[in-house]
Every structure is written in C-alpha cells, then in structure tokens.
C-alpha cells in the first residue's frame, strides 16, 4: 500500500488557515465539528456548574431569577443542538466514509455548508447574551411563555432564528449521510454488512429528515405570532398552546434518539473491538435501530400526559412508549452477549462503553416509570424528570461519545491518549454523574420541582442538592482531565499504527491519520468486519478472497478529489445576515433581511457556477 501512496498524485495536503476555511474534506470537517462542539460542550458545562452552584444551598444568591432562566435555557439548547448533535456529526463525518470505504461524502460542499451553518448558528445564539439577553423560556420553549406579550426583548427571537439555521445545518448533514451510506459503499459492503456505527448514523439521519421539519414549522408559527400578530399559540384569541407542544415533541422525542443512536453505534463498535468478538446478534441490532426509529415517532405525547389530553390518548401513548423498551432491551442484551466470553482488552474506551451499559439501563428504567401515566402525573415537572433525561443523554449519548473519543483518537491524530488519565476521567465521570443524576431522581420523588431558581431550607432537599453540586464538579474535573489529556497527547510524536486496537472495520485498514484520499486499495468485504476477516480469515460460510481491489486506476489515473470552496461559508454568512435581519426587523425597517435574501441568492449561484471537482 505504501508504494501505491507514493505514486498517487495530489497526496500533499494543503496547509494554512485558508485551506481549512475552504476545505471540503470530510476528515477535516469532522475535526472542525468535533473541536467546535467540544468548545460548546465546555460552555454548556460551565452553565451547568452555574446552575448547580446556585442550587447548592437553599436561598442561593449566585444567579438572579432572570439570569438563572437564561442560563438553564442556554444549557439545554447548547447541549442538545451545539454539543451532542454536532459531536455525532463530527464522528460521523470522520468515520463513516472510512468505514464504508468511500473517498469522501457524497456532497462535499454540502458537508462544509453544514459545518459553517452550525458554527454561524451557534455564534448567533450566543451573541444574544451581548444583545439584550439570552433566551429564557427553556430549551423546549413552551408557548405562550415565548409569545411577545409575555417575553419582551430579543432572546426568543435569537433562539428561534438560531434553531432554524441549526435545523437547516442538520438537514444538510442528514441528507448527505443518507446518500453517502446508500450510494458510496465499497464493493461487497451490502446493507446487511454495514458496521453498526454506520447503521446508527443512517437511522439518525432518517430521523433528522423526518423530525426537523416539525420544529421548523413550530418555530415559523411562533415567529409569525411574535412579528406579524398571528395567534397560533395564544389562547386569548382561540389559539392553542398545545399545538406548540405537539409540533415540538413530534420533533423533540425523535430528537432524543437523534442524539443517542450514534452513541449506540459507537458502543457496538467499541465493545466488539475490545472483546475481540463479532457483535452479538448483528441482525437483531440492525433491526432494533430501525425499530427504535419507527417507534420514536409514535410516542411524542408522553411529554404531555399532564396537559389534559384525553385518557384514551394517554393510554395509547403510554403503550407505544413501553414498546420502546423492546428494541432497546434487545440492544442491552446483545451488548452483554458481545462481551460474554470475549477476550477482553480493558481500555478507557471499553470502560466507558461498559459504564454506558449499566448507567444507560438506569435511564431506560426511569423512562418506563415515566411512561406510566399515574406515575408521570405524580412526578412530572419534578427533578425526577431532569434526572431521567440526563441518564439517557449523559449516560447514553455523552458516555458513548467519550468511548468514541478514546477509540478513534489514534486514527484521527496518529497519537494515543494517556490511559492513566483516561481511566481517571472514567472513574470521576462514573462517580460524579451518579451523584448528580441519580440523586435528582430521589429529590424529585421528594417533590422538588424543576426550573426553580432557588428553594427554601428544611424540605429535606438540602443535603441532596449539595451532593448533586459536588457531583457536578466531579464530572467537570473529569472533563478537565480529558482536555489536558488531549492537549498533551497532541504534543507527542505520532506513534499510532494503522490498526492499534486490532480493529475489525475498514477505518483501521488505512494509515493513522488517513491520507486525503483515504484508501489507495480496498480489501474485500464479505462480512460486517472485513479487516478482521483479512487478518484472521473469514469464519463465515461464504469464503471468497479475491485480490485487493485497486482504487487508483492502476496508479496512473487521477484520483478525483473535490475542489476546496469558499461558497459554503459565504452562503452560511448570508443566511446569518437574513436571520439577524429578521431578529431586528422592526428596528431596521426590514432592510437587512432582503439583503440577506439577495446574499443567499448570489452565493447560491456562485456555488452552482463553481466546478465541484477538477
């Protein structure tokens, strides 16, 4: 392979700031996604620490009520839209094309556009802090609290417009992933041989495609209410605030799985690799992905049991919600089956994956409790709910992402993270998160409502709240150690080989980090773990071992790499101009928004006129 690399044209990677701004390389964009998302994850974490500091003791005075509302809204919005989703996009961007043996994504410039619009949307959201106050109605933005009459200022407008930009960004990414995975698989890599991380990304992308339009419409109606005097969510004019909840949760519940299914995929890869076994029940795992996706669109009203929808609806949605436990349970058992009798190699990545199984199961059990209507009526709007969804999103998505970080860091950088620091990170995370989130369940049952900025002493909550705050800082210490680990690792020489973990899938069949064109030759694919087959022989019944497939066209022909482009960034900026023009529409006499539309048109034409590759 090495000799082939030498003969290929355009092997030298361009360097410099401009090359990053105009890049369309899925690996660079993956890294840009990851770095940006980690930054937002840290910011969202600081917001969490502010909340916990305020609530550490009764009658806290760290944050006033107004700022508290802004902070908890921004914490939720940041973690969902600016941290977890883009972290998934980052790993997906970097790893999925490698795993399916592709040279890049199907639409490289659309990929760059997705990243830039994410960055622009995030910055727009955060600029609200300096332009009159951040949004303050929760990440769920329940109407009519978000209506102009009850929420003056521009916080909600920033929230609405930023979420629209982020929605477009997610759609762009989702479309790209689906086409890439369906259309650019290596020869032999049929759908029923896709690695499970690719499966996770595929179903996540499908969820994005079908869920995002619902919140798009919900936000448009809210925007019209705030700017044009419609009354979609205003009860005083016969509007219905529940319409917001239906539209929001039709998006919002699938969104939970949008955040967590890539983590399911990561966990599957990690457990199989470090157990040195194929994933247990591959087909059942793939079907479980599809099953969870489908069911996730039928459960949204379990967020609305306490709103007085009919008892029949309550029962139906409780039933569908219980159904989610079936495919999820299949996954849990198959993960255990994967480890069972494996020759386990305990690394930080494995630890996080194993920790995920235990902790996430607690989150799942809490979900079954909440799906029981009478129980929900009792504990809805308490800290039990907060504890539950953190047990799914932190114990689910974030632990999975941590596992992915330790697993793929050598592939992305050619360097290893320190295992000792990694294990410190793991144990601090386990202990810390249990202190915060398990305790929240208990204090919720004791009756502590969520979304309150302070509470009186002597209600039996004081000790638990202090414990939660200590736990939050423990988790933060773990994240701090992780960052130190990353920074020190990046200063060390590149020592990682192609396949440091004895991996099974195609991303380990190329160098670490991979060249711009990913693969010069492709090994045959006869199972979900082609590299393992190539190393140790296929155990499957249909053993056929054709020669390596040369992708370089005999080493003579050019490899077509997509051209760098500035247009994705410019189009994102034009969209941001439009968004700002809408937010300050009345103040600017609606001058800026049309300029943004013009900019969108011009940059779009520029994009079309530029050849995609040469």
């Amino acid at each position: 392979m090495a000799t082939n690399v030498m003969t290929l044209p355009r092997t030298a990677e361009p360097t410099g700031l401009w090359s990053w701004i105009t890049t369309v390389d899925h690996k660079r964009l993956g890294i840009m996604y990851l770095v940006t998302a980690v930054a937002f994850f840290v910011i969202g974490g600081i917001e969490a620490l502010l909340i916990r500091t305020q609530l550490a003791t009764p009658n806290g005075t760290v944050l006033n009520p107004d700022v508290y509302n802004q902070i908890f809204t921004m914490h939720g919005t940041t973690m969902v839209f600016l941290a977890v989703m883009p972290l998934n996009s980052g790993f997906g961007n970097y790893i999925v094309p490698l795993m399916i043996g592709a040279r890049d994504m199907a639409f490289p410039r659309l990929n760059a556009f997705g990243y830039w619009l994410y960055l622009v949307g995030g910055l727009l959201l955060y600029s609200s802090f300096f332009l009159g106050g951040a949004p303050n109605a929760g990440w769920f933005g329940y109407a009519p609290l978000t209506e102009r009459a009850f929420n003056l200022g521009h916080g909600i407008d920033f929230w609405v417009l930023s979420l629209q930009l982020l929605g477009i960004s997610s759609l762009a990414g989702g479309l790209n992933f689906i086409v890439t995975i369906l259309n650019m698989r290596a020869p032999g890599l049929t759908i029923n041989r896709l690695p499970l991380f690719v499966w996770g990304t595929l179903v996540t992308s499908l969820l994005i495609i079908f869920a995002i339009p619902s919140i798009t419409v919900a936000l448009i109606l809210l925007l019209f209410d705030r700017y044009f005097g419609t009354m979609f969510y205003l009860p005083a004019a016969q509007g219905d605030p529940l319409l917001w909840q239906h539209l929001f949760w039709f998006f919002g519940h699938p969104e939970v799985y949008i955040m967590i299914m890539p983590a399911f995929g990561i966990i599957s890869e990690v457990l199989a690799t470090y157990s040195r076994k194929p994933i247990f029940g591959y087909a059942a795992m793939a079907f479980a992905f599809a099953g969870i996706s489908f069911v996730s669109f039928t459960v949204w009203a379990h967020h609305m049991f306490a709103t007085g929808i009919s008892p029949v609806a309550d029962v139906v949605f409780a039933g569908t919600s219980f159904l989610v436990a079936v495919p999820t349970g299949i996954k849990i058992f198959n993960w255990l089956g994967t480890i069972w009798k494996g020759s386990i190699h305990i690394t930080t990545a494995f630890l996080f994956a194993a920790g995920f199984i235990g902790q996430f199961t607690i989150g799942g059990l809490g979900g079954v409790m909440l799906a029981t209507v009478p129980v929900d009526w009792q504990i809805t709007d308490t800290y039990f709910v907060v504890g539950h969804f953190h047990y799914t999103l932190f114990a689910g998505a974030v632990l999975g992402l941590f596992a992915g970080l330790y697993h793929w860091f050598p592939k992305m950088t050619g360097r290893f993270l320190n295992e000792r620091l990694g294990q410190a990170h793991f144990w601090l995370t386990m202990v810390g998160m249990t202190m915060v989130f398990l305790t929240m369940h208990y204090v919720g049952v004791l009756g502590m409502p969520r979304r309150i900025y302070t509470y009186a002493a002597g209600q039996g909550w004081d000790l638990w709240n202090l414990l939660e705050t200590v736990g939050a800082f423990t988790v933060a210490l773990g994240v701090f150690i992780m960052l130190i680990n990353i920074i020190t690792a990046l200063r060390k020489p590149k020592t990682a080989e192609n396949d440091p973990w004895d991996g099974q899938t195609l991303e380990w069949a190329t160098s670490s980090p991979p060249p711009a064109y990913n693969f010069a030759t492709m090994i045959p694919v006869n199972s979900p773990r082609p590299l393992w087959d190539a190393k140790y022989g296929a155990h499957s019944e249909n053993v056929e071992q054709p020669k390596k497939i040369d992708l370089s066209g005999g080493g003579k022909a050019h490899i077509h790499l997509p051209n760098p482009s500035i247009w994705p960034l410019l189009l994102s900026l034009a969209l941001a101009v439009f968004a700002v023009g809408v937010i300050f529409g009345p103040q600017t006499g609606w001058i800026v928004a049309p300029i943004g539309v013009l900019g969108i048109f011009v940059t779009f034409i520029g994009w079309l006129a530029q050849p995609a590759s040469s």
Partner: protein
Amino acid sequence: MSAVGKLEQAGHRVGETLEDVVDEAHAQAEHAETSTGLDHRKLVMWIFIASETIFFAALMATYLVYRGHTPHEEGLGHLSVPVASFNTFILLASSLTMVLSLQAIEAGKRGRMIVLLILTALFGLAFLGGQAFEYNELLKEGISIDTNLFGATFFTLTGFHGTHVAVGILWITMLIIRALRGGITEHNHLAVELGGLYWHFVDLVWVVLFTIIYLI
C-alpha cells in the same frame, strides 16, 4: 440584435460555467458507479422531498386543527372556489408541460424542451398571479394574516406553498438559461428530471391544499 439573440448571449455567459459543472458531474457519474445505481443527486432529491412532506404535513395539520375555530362568514366564506379551481387547472397544466419537456429532451428535441420549460414557468407565474389576486380580494374584505385564525392559517399555508412555486420558477429559469447555452442534451438531462421532481411535488402539495381548503 434580436431579443432572442440577446437572451441567448446572456444565457451564454451564465451558462458557460454551469455547463462545465454539468459536464464534470456527468463525467463523474459515468466514472463512478453508485451502490444503488441511482445518481447521488436524484437520490438526495427524493429524500429532500420526503422531508418536505413533513413540513407541509405540519402546516396542513395546523390548518385543519383550527379549521372550525373561525365562523364561516369571517373566513372560508370569503374564498372564491372558481378562482382557486382555475389556479389548480393552471398548475396541473404546468406539470403536464414539465413532463413533456423531459420527454422532448429524451427524444433529443432541445428547442421543443426549451419552449415547454418556458410554458411551465409562465404557468407557474400565472398561478402566482392568481394567488396574488386572491390575496388582494381577501385583504380588501378585511381579512389578513392577523385578523383571525383563518387568516393566520390560510395565509401561512398557501404562502409557503406559493414560495415553493416561486423557487420552482427560479429553478426552471436557470434550466432554460442552461439549455439555451446547450448545457442540457439528449444524454445529459438529469437537471431537467430533478427540476421536474420538485415541480411535480409542489403541484401535488397544491392538490392536497386545494382539497382541504376549498373542497371539504
């Protein structure tokens, strides 16, 4: 210089680079077989349309939920079914011309395709004209987007559909420019097919809107 000549020259300038794109993409498509056999762009178009169905479904659901909330004489009673029927006819006719334009280029008849594309765009414009007339009548009768729930849902739903029609007209205009430059040929006409997919989808949405707003 004749008007057509000027148009052709303008088309030449814009089309020059566009044509390169098309040729390049075409060359690539022939180069690399996709796993499904479908072109990337066609596949993404179908998935995008799937996403758009949810967008319109959410808007339609909103319309239907609020349908009974406004008394007939303050809302639906102001709509003119004949005007909307005429508009529906125009839009359906535009779908026909769109199909015929694709058929024309498949048979290698470029001029015929261009005429049919121009007709399609004109039908689209006529539809928007009809919509503007309808909006104007409603405004004159005192119904606007902030009057009541009927106004809010009607203008939002039909407004977003109208915006989609407008985008479609821009799209077809770009196809016409590219075709005038010679960038669309008998063997390279995926662009027309993609534009057609979008256009038929927007028409189909209108058929549903017409049914739920004017007929039931």
